Protein backbone atom coordinates (compact mmCIF):
# COMPACT_ATOMS: atom_id res chain seq x y z
CA UNK A 1 0.00 0.00 0.00
CA UNK A 2 1.16 3.56 -0.74
CA UNK A 3 2.73 5.59 2.04
CA UNK A 4 0.59 8.27 3.65
CA UNK A 5 2.11 11.26 1.88
CA UNK A 6 0.60 14.17 -0.03
CA UNK A 7 1.84 13.05 -3.43
CA UNK A 8 1.86 9.25 -3.16
CA UNK A 9 0.16 7.59 -6.12
CA UNK A 10 -3.00 5.68 -5.29
CA UNK A 11 -3.07 7.33 -1.85
CA UNK A 12 -6.87 7.04 -1.69
CA UNK A 13 -6.79 3.47 -0.48
CA UNK A 14 -4.16 4.31 2.13
CA UNK A 15 -6.37 7.14 3.38
CA UNK A 16 -9.42 4.92 3.63
CA UNK A 17 -7.51 2.26 5.53
CA UNK A 18 -5.69 4.66 7.88
CA UNK A 19 -6.79 5.16 11.48
CA UNK A 20 -7.74 8.59 12.82
CA UNK A 21 -4.43 8.70 14.72
CA UNK A 22 -2.49 8.02 11.55
CA UNK A 23 -4.36 10.75 9.67
CA UNK A 24 -3.75 13.14 12.57
CA UNK A 25 -0.02 12.54 12.42
CA UNK A 26 0.21 13.56 8.74
CA UNK A 27 2.15 16.73 7.92
CA UNK A 28 -0.54 18.00 5.57
CA UNK A 29 -4.24 18.74 5.86
CA UNK A 30 -6.73 15.93 5.33
CA UNK A 31 -10.46 16.41 4.97
CA UNK A 32 -12.52 13.26 4.68
CA UNK A 33 -16.06 13.76 3.37
CA UNK A 34 -18.98 11.46 2.79
CA UNK A 35 -20.72 11.22 -0.58
CA UNK A 36 -22.86 14.26 0.21
CA UNK A 37 -19.82 16.39 1.00
CA UNK A 38 -20.26 16.39 4.80
CA UNK A 39 -17.07 16.28 6.83
CA UNK A 40 -16.41 12.92 8.47
CA UNK A 41 -12.86 13.58 9.56
CA UNK A 42 -10.85 16.78 9.84
CA UNK A 43 -7.26 16.11 10.77
CA UNK A 44 -5.14 17.96 13.31
CA UNK A 45 -2.91 19.61 10.71
CA UNK A 46 -5.88 21.10 8.85
CA UNK A 47 -7.54 22.12 12.10
CA UNK A 48 -4.46 24.12 13.13
CA UNK A 49 -4.05 25.64 9.66
CA UNK A 50 -7.62 26.92 9.62
CA UNK A 51 -7.80 27.77 13.30
CA UNK A 52 -10.98 25.75 13.70
CA UNK A 53 -11.59 22.96 16.24
CA UNK A 54 -12.53 19.62 14.73
CA UNK A 55 -15.92 19.52 16.41
CA UNK A 56 -16.84 22.81 14.69
CA UNK A 57 -16.28 21.27 11.29
CA UNK A 58 -17.29 17.63 11.51
CA UNK A 59 -20.79 17.03 10.21
CA UNK A 60 -20.82 20.28 8.20
CA UNK A 61 -20.93 20.49 4.43
CA UNK A 62 -17.29 21.27 3.79
CA UNK A 63 -17.41 23.47 0.68
CA UNK A 64 -20.75 25.12 1.42
CA UNK A 65 -20.17 25.99 5.08
CA UNK A 66 -16.47 25.76 5.92
CA UNK A 67 -14.22 26.26 2.91
CA UNK A 68 -16.29 28.64 0.82
CA UNK A 69 -13.08 29.74 -0.92
CA UNK A 70 -13.10 26.48 -2.87
CA UNK A 71 -16.83 26.35 -3.49
CA UNK A 72 -16.62 26.90 -7.25
CA UNK A 73 -16.06 25.12 -10.53
CA UNK A 74 -12.34 24.86 -9.86
CA UNK A 75 -12.66 22.63 -6.81
CA UNK A 76 -16.04 21.79 -5.27
CA UNK A 77 -17.92 21.29 -8.53
CA UNK A 78 -15.34 18.79 -9.70
CA UNK A 79 -16.37 16.38 -6.93
CA UNK A 80 -19.91 16.48 -8.28
CA UNK A 81 -19.04 16.34 -11.96
CA UNK A 82 -16.26 13.77 -12.11
CA UNK A 83 -16.73 10.12 -11.18
CA UNK A 84 -13.02 9.44 -10.83
CA UNK A 85 -10.93 12.27 -9.50
CA UNK A 86 -7.26 12.54 -8.60
CA UNK A 87 -6.12 16.06 -9.40
CA UNK A 88 -3.45 18.24 -7.83
CA UNK A 89 -3.91 21.98 -8.29
CA UNK A 90 -2.40 25.19 -6.98
CA UNK A 91 -4.96 27.22 -5.10
CA UNK A 92 -5.39 29.98 -2.53
CA UNK A 93 -7.12 29.63 0.82
CA UNK A 94 -8.02 32.40 3.23
CA UNK A 95 -6.85 30.91 6.50
CA UNK A 96 -7.58 33.44 9.21
CA UNK A 97 -8.29 36.02 6.48
CA UNK A 98 -4.74 35.76 5.08
CA UNK A 99 -4.11 34.76 1.52
CA UNK A 100 -2.40 31.41 1.83
CA UNK A 101 -1.02 29.65 -1.23
CA UNK A 102 -1.78 25.97 -1.03
CA UNK A 103 -1.61 22.88 -3.11
CA UNK A 104 -4.79 20.82 -3.20
CA UNK A 105 -5.21 17.19 -4.09
CA UNK A 106 -8.77 16.23 -4.98
CA UNK A 107 -9.54 12.54 -4.55
CA UNK A 108 -12.64 10.57 -5.35
CA UNK A 109 -13.26 7.13 -6.73
CA UNK A 110 -16.37 5.21 -7.72
CA UNK A 111 -15.34 2.26 -5.53
CA UNK A 112 -14.91 4.40 -2.40
CA UNK A 113 -17.72 5.85 -0.27
CA UNK A 114 -15.54 8.72 0.91
CA UNK A 115 -13.99 11.70 -0.82
CA UNK A 116 -10.80 13.36 0.32
CA UNK A 117 -9.26 16.77 0.03
CA UNK A 118 -5.56 17.05 0.84
CA UNK A 119 -4.12 20.48 1.63
CA UNK A 120 -0.47 21.47 1.64
CA UNK A 121 1.10 24.90 2.04
CA UNK A 122 3.27 26.00 -0.83
Amino acid at each position, binding site marked *: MSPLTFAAPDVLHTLVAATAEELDSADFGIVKMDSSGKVVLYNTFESKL*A*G*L*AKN*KVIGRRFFA*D*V*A*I*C*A*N*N*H*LVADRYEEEAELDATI*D*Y*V*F*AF*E*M*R*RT*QVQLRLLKSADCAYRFLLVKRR
Partner: protein
Amino acid sequence: MSTEQNISERYEALLQFLYMCPVGIVRLTLNGNIEQINPKATMLLMQISAKDDATNLFSTLSQFAPELRNVVSAFAEPHGTIVENYTIDVRHGVARKNTPPLVLALTLIKVDAATLMAVLTDISKLAEQEQMIRSKEARLRAIFDGVRDYAIYTLDPQGNIETWNQSAQRVEGYRPEEVLGQPFGMDYPLDAQDPARSGYQLRLAQQYGWYEDEGWRVRRDGSRFWANSIVSVLGRSDSQTVDGYSVITRDITERKRTEDELRRLASTDFLTGALNRRRFFEEAQRHVMRATRASVPFSLVLVDADHFKRINDTYGHSFGDVVLKELVNSCQGSLRTEDLVARYGGEEFVILLPGVTQQRALIVAERIRAAVEKSILVVDGREIRYTISLGVAQFADSVEATLRQADRALYLAKAGGRNCVVAS
Protein backbone atom coordinates in the same frame (compact mmCIF):
# COMPACT_ATOMS: atom_id res chain seq x y z
CA MET B 1 -13.60 28.13 32.18
CA SER B 2 -10.30 29.98 32.18
CA THR B 3 -10.08 33.34 30.45
CA GLU B 4 -7.60 31.97 27.97
CA GLN B 5 -9.96 29.23 26.93
CA ASN B 6 -12.72 31.74 26.74
CA ILE B 7 -10.73 33.98 24.41
CA SER B 8 -9.74 31.18 22.08
CA GLU B 9 -13.35 30.01 21.87
CA ARG B 10 -14.50 33.53 21.05
CA TYR B 11 -11.75 33.85 18.44
CA GLU B 12 -12.83 30.60 16.89
CA ALA B 13 -16.46 31.63 16.76
CA LEU B 14 -15.43 34.85 15.04
CA LEU B 15 -13.31 32.95 12.55
CA GLN B 16 -16.16 30.62 11.79
CA PHE B 17 -18.44 33.59 11.24
CA LEU B 18 -16.00 35.11 8.76
CA TYR B 19 -15.42 31.78 7.04
CA MET B 20 -19.15 31.39 6.48
CA CYS B 21 -19.79 34.98 5.40
CA PRO B 22 -21.66 34.78 2.07
CA VAL B 23 -20.24 38.03 0.66
CA GLY B 24 -16.63 38.72 -0.16
CA ILE B 25 -14.75 41.10 2.12
CA VAL B 26 -11.25 42.37 1.42
CA ARG B 27 -8.99 44.80 3.22
CA LEU B 28 -6.63 46.58 0.81
CA THR B 29 -3.92 49.17 0.73
CA LEU B 30 -4.68 52.28 -1.35
CA ASN B 31 -2.92 50.78 -4.36
CA GLY B 32 -4.94 47.61 -4.19
CA ASN B 33 -2.64 45.15 -2.40
CA ILE B 34 -4.69 42.58 -0.52
CA GLU B 35 -3.99 42.61 3.22
CA GLN B 36 -6.87 40.49 4.47
CA ILE B 37 -9.43 38.52 2.57
CA ASN B 38 -12.26 36.20 3.50
CA PRO B 39 -12.98 32.86 1.81
CA LYS B 40 -15.89 34.08 -0.30
CA ALA B 41 -13.76 36.84 -1.80
CA THR B 42 -10.94 34.34 -2.39
CA MET B 43 -13.36 32.05 -4.16
CA LEU B 44 -14.65 34.81 -6.45
CA LEU B 45 -11.17 36.11 -7.27
CA MET B 46 -9.90 32.60 -8.00
CA GLN B 47 -12.66 32.30 -10.58
CA ILE B 48 -11.33 35.40 -12.29
CA SER B 49 -7.65 34.62 -12.03
CA ALA B 50 -6.93 30.97 -11.38
CA LYS B 51 -3.23 31.65 -11.69
CA ASP B 52 -3.56 32.53 -7.98
CA ASP B 53 -1.65 35.78 -8.56
CA ALA B 54 -4.51 37.72 -7.01
CA THR B 55 -2.32 39.65 -4.61
CA ASN B 56 -3.56 42.97 -5.93
CA LEU B 57 -7.29 43.51 -6.39
CA PHE B 58 -6.95 46.20 -9.06
CA SER B 59 -4.56 44.09 -11.14
CA THR B 60 -6.80 41.06 -10.87
CA LEU B 61 -9.81 43.06 -12.01
CA SER B 62 -7.89 45.21 -14.52
CA GLN B 63 -8.95 43.15 -17.49
CA PHE B 64 -12.60 43.68 -16.66
CA ALA B 65 -12.57 47.05 -14.92
CA PRO B 66 -9.40 48.84 -16.08
CA GLU B 67 -10.76 52.19 -14.90
CA LEU B 68 -10.90 51.10 -11.26
CA ARG B 69 -7.38 52.21 -10.37
CA ASN B 70 -8.07 55.65 -11.79
CA VAL B 71 -11.37 55.97 -10.00
CA VAL B 72 -9.63 55.24 -6.71
CA SER B 73 -6.72 57.59 -7.27
CA ALA B 74 -9.14 60.33 -8.33
CA PHE B 75 -10.97 60.02 -5.00
CA ALA B 76 -9.59 62.94 -3.02
CA GLU B 77 -11.64 62.67 0.18
CA PRO B 78 -9.90 61.42 3.35
CA HIS B 79 -12.53 58.74 3.71
CA GLY B 80 -15.86 57.69 2.22
CA THR B 81 -17.49 55.46 -0.36
CA ILE B 82 -15.54 55.43 -3.62
CA VAL B 83 -17.87 53.19 -5.60
CA GLU B 84 -21.04 51.45 -4.55
CA ASN B 85 -22.25 48.29 -6.24
CA TYR B 86 -20.06 48.94 -9.22
CA THR B 87 -20.81 46.23 -11.78
CA ILE B 88 -17.91 44.15 -13.07
CA ASP B 89 -18.86 41.90 -15.93
CA VAL B 90 -16.66 38.82 -16.20
CA ARG B 91 -19.00 37.09 -18.60
CA HIS B 92 -16.96 37.62 -21.73
CA GLY B 93 -13.43 36.71 -20.81
CA VAL B 94 -11.57 35.28 -23.77
CA ALA B 95 -8.55 34.26 -21.76
CA ARG B 96 -9.90 31.20 -20.03
CA LYS B 97 -12.35 28.55 -21.03
CA ASN B 98 -14.94 26.79 -18.89
CA THR B 99 -15.42 29.75 -16.63
CA PRO B 100 -19.02 30.04 -15.53
CA PRO B 101 -20.63 33.42 -16.19
CA LEU B 102 -19.83 35.82 -13.40
CA VAL B 103 -21.02 39.33 -12.70
CA LEU B 104 -19.73 41.02 -9.57
CA ALA B 105 -20.87 44.06 -7.66
CA LEU B 106 -18.00 45.90 -6.00
CA THR B 107 -18.29 48.43 -3.22
CA LEU B 108 -15.07 50.24 -2.28
CA ILE B 109 -14.81 52.27 0.88
CA LYS B 110 -11.86 54.39 1.86
CA VAL B 111 -11.42 53.90 5.58
CA ASP B 112 -8.37 56.08 6.11
CA ALA B 113 -5.33 57.36 4.21
CA ALA B 114 -3.88 53.86 3.92
CA THR B 115 -6.82 51.47 3.97
CA LEU B 116 -9.61 50.43 1.63
CA MET B 117 -12.35 47.94 2.37
CA ALA B 118 -13.92 46.12 -0.55
CA VAL B 119 -17.16 44.18 -0.61
CA LEU B 120 -17.63 41.76 -3.49
CA THR B 121 -21.00 40.24 -4.23
CA ASP B 122 -21.85 37.69 -6.86
CA ILE B 123 -24.77 39.19 -8.79
CA SER B 124 -24.69 36.86 -11.78
CA LYS B 125 -28.26 35.68 -11.29
CA LEU B 126 -29.41 39.23 -10.69
CA ALA B 127 -27.76 40.43 -13.89
CA GLU B 128 -29.61 37.78 -15.85
CA GLN B 129 -32.93 39.02 -14.57
CA GLU B 130 -31.92 42.64 -14.88
CA GLN B 131 -32.79 42.96 -18.53
CA MET B 132 -36.31 41.66 -18.00
CA ILE B 133 -36.95 43.77 -14.96
CA ARG B 134 -35.57 46.87 -16.63
CA SER B 135 -38.11 46.76 -19.41
CA LYS B 136 -40.99 46.23 -17.00
CA GLU B 137 -39.73 49.00 -14.80
CA ALA B 138 -39.58 51.44 -17.67
CA ARG B 139 -43.21 50.77 -18.46
CA LEU B 140 -44.37 51.16 -14.89
CA ARG B 141 -42.41 54.36 -14.49
CA ALA B 142 -43.94 55.76 -17.65
CA ILE B 143 -47.33 55.24 -16.12
CA PHE B 144 -46.82 56.25 -12.51
CA ASP B 145 -43.84 58.54 -12.33
CA GLY B 146 -44.21 62.29 -12.31
CA VAL B 147 -47.77 62.50 -13.53
CA ARG B 148 -47.91 66.12 -12.40
CA ASP B 149 -47.31 67.61 -15.78
CA TYR B 150 -49.03 65.81 -18.58
CA ALA B 151 -51.15 66.71 -21.55
CA ILE B 152 -54.21 64.60 -21.97
CA TYR B 153 -56.38 64.80 -25.07
CA THR B 154 -58.47 62.51 -27.17
CA LEU B 155 -58.66 61.51 -30.82
CA ASP B 156 -61.65 60.48 -32.86
CA PRO B 157 -61.67 57.02 -34.53
CA GLN B 158 -59.93 58.52 -37.59
CA GLY B 159 -57.08 59.79 -35.41
CA ASN B 160 -57.91 63.49 -35.42
CA ILE B 161 -57.84 65.54 -32.22
CA GLU B 162 -61.31 65.63 -30.69
CA THR B 163 -60.82 67.18 -27.26
CA TRP B 164 -57.96 69.31 -25.99
CA ASN B 165 -58.05 70.30 -22.32
CA GLN B 166 -56.20 72.75 -20.13
CA SER B 167 -53.42 70.34 -19.28
CA ALA B 168 -52.65 69.91 -22.96
CA GLN B 169 -52.70 73.65 -23.46
CA ARG B 170 -50.33 74.11 -20.52
CA VAL B 171 -47.80 71.55 -21.75
CA GLU B 172 -47.94 72.25 -25.48
CA GLY B 173 -49.12 75.88 -25.66
CA TYR B 174 -51.89 75.41 -28.22
CA ARG B 175 -55.45 76.59 -27.58
CA PRO B 176 -58.23 74.09 -28.38
CA GLU B 177 -59.44 75.97 -31.47
CA GLU B 178 -55.93 75.74 -32.96
CA VAL B 179 -55.67 71.98 -32.82
CA LEU B 180 -59.15 70.43 -32.88
CA GLY B 181 -59.52 68.33 -36.03
CA GLN B 182 -55.74 68.22 -36.62
CA PRO B 183 -54.27 64.74 -37.11
CA PHE B 184 -52.45 62.88 -34.37
CA GLY B 185 -48.76 63.71 -34.64
CA MET B 186 -49.24 67.40 -35.42
CA ASP B 187 -46.95 68.22 -32.46
CA TYR B 188 -44.09 66.11 -33.84
CA PRO B 189 -41.11 67.94 -35.37
CA LEU B 190 -41.63 68.60 -39.08
CA ASP B 191 -39.13 65.98 -40.17
CA ALA B 192 -40.93 63.36 -38.08
CA GLN B 193 -44.47 64.20 -39.22
CA ASP B 194 -45.64 61.32 -41.31
CA PRO B 195 -49.24 60.19 -41.73
CA ALA B 196 -48.05 56.62 -42.33
CA ARG B 197 -46.21 56.60 -39.01
CA SER B 198 -49.16 58.01 -37.10
CA GLY B 199 -51.46 55.47 -38.70
CA TYR B 200 -49.07 52.70 -37.75
CA GLN B 201 -48.99 53.86 -34.11
CA LEU B 202 -52.78 53.92 -33.92
CA ARG B 203 -53.01 50.47 -35.48
CA LEU B 204 -50.61 49.14 -32.85
CA ALA B 205 -52.69 50.76 -30.11
CA GLN B 206 -55.76 49.09 -31.57
CA GLN B 207 -54.04 45.74 -31.68
CA TYR B 208 -52.58 45.78 -28.17
CA GLY B 209 -54.89 48.21 -26.36
CA TRP B 210 -52.15 50.79 -25.98
CA TYR B 211 -49.00 52.14 -27.60
CA GLU B 212 -46.04 53.93 -26.10
CA ASP B 213 -43.68 56.31 -27.87
CA GLU B 214 -40.79 58.53 -26.84
CA GLY B 215 -39.50 61.42 -28.89
CA TRP B 216 -39.36 65.15 -29.51
CA ARG B 217 -42.51 67.26 -29.54
CA VAL B 218 -42.78 70.88 -30.62
CA ARG B 219 -44.69 73.45 -28.59
CA ARG B 220 -46.66 76.26 -30.16
CA ASP B 221 -43.74 78.66 -29.63
CA GLY B 222 -41.42 76.32 -31.57
CA SER B 223 -39.50 75.07 -28.51
CA ARG B 224 -38.95 71.33 -28.19
CA PHE B 225 -39.41 68.92 -25.34
CA TRP B 226 -38.66 65.22 -25.02
CA ALA B 227 -41.95 63.44 -24.49
CA ASN B 228 -43.32 60.12 -23.47
CA SER B 229 -46.72 59.46 -25.00
CA ILE B 230 -49.12 56.68 -24.29
CA VAL B 231 -51.97 56.16 -26.70
CA SER B 232 -54.85 54.04 -25.38
CA VAL B 233 -57.90 52.80 -27.18
CA LEU B 234 -61.28 54.13 -26.06
CA GLY B 235 -64.21 51.82 -26.49
CA ARG B 236 -66.06 48.96 -24.92
CA SER B 237 -63.81 46.00 -24.49
CA ASP B 238 -66.36 43.64 -26.07
CA SER B 239 -66.81 45.64 -29.23
CA GLN B 240 -64.72 45.35 -32.37
CA THR B 241 -65.02 49.03 -33.19
CA VAL B 242 -62.94 51.83 -31.78
CA ASP B 243 -64.64 54.87 -30.28
CA GLY B 244 -61.44 56.86 -30.33
CA TYR B 245 -58.15 57.18 -28.48
CA SER B 246 -56.80 58.95 -25.44
CA VAL B 247 -53.31 60.36 -25.54
CA ILE B 248 -51.21 61.19 -22.49
CA THR B 249 -48.07 63.12 -23.29
CA ARG B 250 -45.56 63.94 -20.57
CA ASP B 251 -42.57 66.27 -20.72
CA ILE B 252 -39.64 64.13 -19.58
CA THR B 253 -36.84 66.31 -20.96
CA GLU B 254 -35.12 66.56 -17.58
CA ARG B 255 -35.24 62.85 -16.99
CA LYS B 256 -33.89 62.15 -20.46
CA ARG B 257 -31.00 64.55 -19.87
CA THR B 258 -30.14 62.81 -16.58
CA GLU B 259 -30.52 59.41 -18.15
CA ASP B 260 -28.33 60.31 -21.10
CA GLU B 261 -25.64 61.55 -18.73
CA LEU B 262 -25.95 58.50 -16.49
CA ARG B 263 -25.81 56.23 -19.49
CA ARG B 264 -22.71 58.00 -20.75
CA LEU B 265 -21.04 57.67 -17.33
CA ALA B 266 -22.08 54.05 -16.96
CA SER B 267 -20.86 53.07 -20.39
CA THR B 268 -17.53 54.82 -20.73
CA ASP B 269 -14.09 54.19 -19.35
CA PHE B 270 -13.22 56.66 -16.61
CA LEU B 271 -9.74 57.49 -17.88
CA THR B 272 -9.96 57.50 -21.66
CA GLY B 273 -13.63 58.12 -22.40
CA ALA B 274 -13.69 55.03 -24.60
CA LEU B 275 -16.63 52.66 -24.14
CA ASN B 276 -16.20 50.18 -21.30
CA ARG B 277 -16.22 46.42 -21.77
CA ARG B 278 -19.82 45.97 -20.69
CA ARG B 279 -21.10 48.47 -23.18
CA PHE B 280 -18.82 47.11 -25.90
CA PHE B 281 -20.32 43.63 -25.59
CA GLU B 282 -23.84 45.07 -25.63
CA GLU B 283 -23.06 47.01 -28.81
CA ALA B 284 -21.24 44.03 -30.36
CA GLN B 285 -24.32 41.90 -29.75
CA ARG B 286 -26.41 44.33 -31.79
CA HIS B 287 -23.98 44.04 -34.67
CA VAL B 288 -24.00 40.27 -34.38
CA MET B 289 -27.75 40.36 -34.96
CA ARG B 290 -27.30 42.55 -38.02
CA ALA B 291 -24.54 40.30 -39.28
CA THR B 292 -26.56 37.12 -38.91
CA ARG B 293 -29.93 38.49 -40.04
CA ALA B 294 -28.93 40.91 -42.75
CA SER B 295 -25.44 39.65 -43.61
CA VAL B 296 -23.89 43.01 -42.77
CA PRO B 297 -20.23 42.29 -41.97
CA PHE B 298 -18.25 43.91 -39.22
CA SER B 299 -14.67 43.68 -38.09
CA LEU B 300 -12.86 43.90 -34.80
CA VAL B 301 -9.42 45.39 -34.30
CA LEU B 302 -7.49 44.75 -31.10
CA VAL B 303 -5.03 47.52 -30.32
CA ASP B 304 -2.25 47.19 -27.79
CA ALA B 305 0.35 49.80 -26.84
CA ASP B 306 3.86 48.48 -27.44
CA HIS B 307 6.19 48.24 -24.43
CA PHE B 308 3.57 49.86 -22.27
CA LYS B 309 5.06 48.39 -19.12
CA ARG B 310 8.37 50.01 -20.02
CA ILE B 311 6.63 53.37 -20.53
CA ASN B 312 4.99 53.02 -17.13
CA ASP B 313 8.20 51.94 -15.42
CA THR B 314 10.30 54.65 -17.06
CA TYR B 315 7.95 57.61 -16.83
CA GLY B 316 5.41 56.61 -14.20
CA HIS B 317 1.74 55.64 -14.23
CA SER B 318 0.43 59.13 -14.86
CA PHE B 319 2.47 59.24 -18.04
CA GLY B 320 1.06 55.87 -19.00
CA ASP B 321 -2.40 57.33 -18.51
CA VAL B 322 -1.61 60.15 -20.94
CA VAL B 323 -0.45 57.61 -23.50
CA LEU B 324 -3.73 55.69 -23.20
CA LYS B 325 -5.80 58.86 -23.57
CA GLU B 326 -3.80 59.90 -26.63
CA LEU B 327 -4.09 56.43 -28.07
CA VAL B 328 -7.86 56.64 -27.93
CA ASN B 329 -7.74 60.12 -29.49
CA SER B 330 -5.56 58.85 -32.33
CA CYS B 331 -7.95 55.96 -32.96
CA GLN B 332 -10.99 58.20 -32.96
CA GLY B 333 -9.24 60.64 -35.28
CA SER B 334 -8.91 57.91 -37.88
CA LEU B 335 -12.42 56.50 -37.51
CA ARG B 336 -15.94 57.28 -38.65
CA THR B 337 -18.63 58.35 -36.19
CA GLU B 338 -20.31 54.94 -36.31
CA ASP B 339 -17.10 53.10 -35.38
CA LEU B 340 -16.67 52.19 -31.71
CA VAL B 341 -13.59 52.27 -29.51
CA ALA B 342 -13.72 50.42 -26.19
CA ARG B 343 -11.22 49.80 -23.44
CA TYR B 344 -10.78 46.07 -23.44
CA GLY B 345 -8.11 45.56 -20.83
CA GLY B 346 -5.28 47.42 -19.14
CA GLU B 347 -3.57 48.85 -22.21
CA GLU B 348 -5.66 47.00 -24.74
CA PHE B 349 -8.44 48.53 -26.80
CA VAL B 350 -10.92 47.04 -29.22
CA ILE B 351 -12.37 48.82 -32.23
CA LEU B 352 -15.61 47.73 -33.86
CA LEU B 353 -15.99 48.69 -37.51
CA PRO B 354 -19.61 48.23 -38.65
CA GLY B 355 -20.13 47.18 -42.25
CA VAL B 356 -16.40 46.69 -42.77
CA THR B 357 -14.76 43.55 -44.15
CA GLN B 358 -11.38 42.33 -42.98
CA GLN B 359 -9.70 43.71 -46.07
CA ARG B 360 -10.92 47.22 -45.39
CA ALA B 361 -10.36 46.86 -41.64
CA LEU B 362 -6.70 46.22 -42.41
CA ILE B 363 -6.48 49.57 -44.20
CA VAL B 364 -8.16 51.37 -41.27
CA ALA B 365 -5.87 49.64 -38.77
CA GLU B 366 -2.80 50.61 -40.78
CA ARG B 367 -4.02 54.24 -40.84
CA ILE B 368 -4.28 54.22 -37.04
CA ARG B 369 -0.88 52.60 -36.64
CA ALA B 370 0.73 55.22 -38.89
CA ALA B 371 -1.04 58.06 -37.05
CA VAL B 372 0.24 56.84 -33.69
CA GLU B 373 3.77 56.31 -34.98
CA LYS B 374 3.87 59.91 -36.23
CA SER B 375 2.45 61.46 -33.06
CA ILE B 376 4.70 62.99 -30.44
CA LEU B 377 3.50 63.31 -26.84
CA VAL B 378 4.78 66.06 -24.62
CA VAL B 379 4.38 65.51 -20.88
CA ASP B 380 6.18 67.67 -18.33
CA GLY B 381 8.40 69.00 -21.09
CA ARG B 382 9.49 65.54 -22.14
CA GLU B 383 8.82 64.27 -25.63
CA ILE B 384 7.96 60.69 -26.20
CA ARG B 385 6.98 58.58 -29.16
CA TYR B 386 5.18 55.30 -28.83
CA THR B 387 3.85 52.65 -31.17
CA ILE B 388 0.99 50.18 -31.23
CA SER B 389 0.38 46.70 -32.55
CA LEU B 390 -2.95 45.72 -34.06
CA GLY B 391 -4.75 42.45 -34.73
CA VAL B 392 -7.66 42.39 -37.17
CA ALA B 393 -10.48 39.87 -37.58
CA GLN B 394 -13.80 39.94 -39.39
CA PHE B 395 -16.79 38.70 -37.44
CA ALA B 396 -17.56 35.00 -37.73
CA ASP B 397 -19.53 32.70 -35.40
CA SER B 398 -19.42 34.75 -32.20
CA VAL B 399 -17.92 37.86 -30.68
CA GLU B 400 -15.74 35.72 -28.41
CA ALA B 401 -14.44 33.63 -31.31
CA THR B 402 -13.73 36.77 -33.34
CA LEU B 403 -11.90 38.30 -30.40
CA ARG B 404 -9.80 35.18 -30.09
CA GLN B 405 -8.94 35.48 -33.79
CA ALA B 406 -8.01 39.13 -33.38
CA ASP B 407 -6.04 38.26 -30.25
CA ARG B 408 -4.05 35.66 -32.14
CA ALA B 409 -3.37 38.17 -34.91
CA LEU B 410 -2.29 40.70 -32.29
CA TYR B 411 0.05 38.13 -30.80
CA LEU B 412 1.61 37.60 -34.23
CA ALA B 413 1.97 41.37 -34.64
CA LYS B 414 3.81 41.51 -31.31
CA ALA B 415 5.95 38.52 -32.20
CA GLY B 416 6.70 40.03 -35.60
CA GLY B 417 8.47 42.98 -34.07
CA ARG B 418 5.55 45.21 -32.94
CA ASN B 419 4.40 48.47 -34.58
CA CYS B 420 2.55 46.53 -37.24
CA VAL B 421 -0.87 45.20 -38.28
CA VAL B 422 -1.72 41.53 -38.73
CA ALA B 423 -4.99 40.02 -39.94
CA SER B 424 -6.25 36.68 -38.68
